[in-house]
């Protein structure tokens, strides 16, 4: 009985690690798409108005960083599930 419980406990730890990894991967998809959109539109803007490249890049950098925060939330969940 104790062996069975120990096995179930190990399986639970394994499932937790798989879930954490899967969640982190899924959480990175959205920001990836978002960053693609931000940079794609920034490039379009720079191509249309090269004189405003500096301004566009400022906005782009902040947009990338804000979008990346979503991925970092997934990362934090991964840390908490795996190590807490």
């Amino acid at each position, binding site marked *: 009985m104790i062996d069975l419980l120990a096995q179930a406990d190990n399986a639970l730890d394994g499932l937790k690690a798989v879930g954490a990894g899967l969640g*982190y991967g899924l959480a*990175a998809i959205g920001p990836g798409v978002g960053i*693609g959109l931000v940079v794609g539109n920034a490039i379009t803007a720079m191509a249309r108005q*090269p*004189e*405003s*490249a500096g*301004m566009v*890049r400022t906005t782009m950098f902040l947009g990338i960083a804000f979008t990346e925060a979503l991925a970092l939330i997934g990362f934090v969940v991964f840390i908490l599930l*795996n190590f807490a």
Partner: protein
Amino acid sequence: MKNKVQDRSVEVPNRDPHSEPEKNIVSDMLSRGLKITPLWLLLSLAIWGVDGVASSAIGLGLIFANFLAAAAFLTWAGRISVAALMFAALGGFVLRLALLTIAVIGFSKITFFAPVPLAITIIVSHLGLLVWETRYVSLSLAYPGLGPSHMTQKNRKEIK
């Protein structure tokens, strides 16, 4: 009939300091971050103890390094072409996430590692520094990076 191939590449103009705004933004963010770091570490010490301070310091270091790497990679790519900028943004995102994960897994082997302070520090410092920085960013053609420090309130309103 001339069969000229049109050059459609777009070059980023003006290689003056204002044409590389990422550097300005990140250096500004880091200077603000370094000012707030002692306060955050004291708060961590009060809440989570010595292990919490060490983990918070690791978290702050990771976020500062993440911002620095993002700015360096984008600035480097921006000097080449806008296509390289796209590569740097997406490739850099994946690379930085991978490096963050490897770093945290490496730090987790250390005895004083505390996941909760690390997690909270990562989110709070990343979002906090960004929101703080957004207030000072000037979205004008005259000052494409940060608003000049000598700008008066009246000028600031005019630019906005």
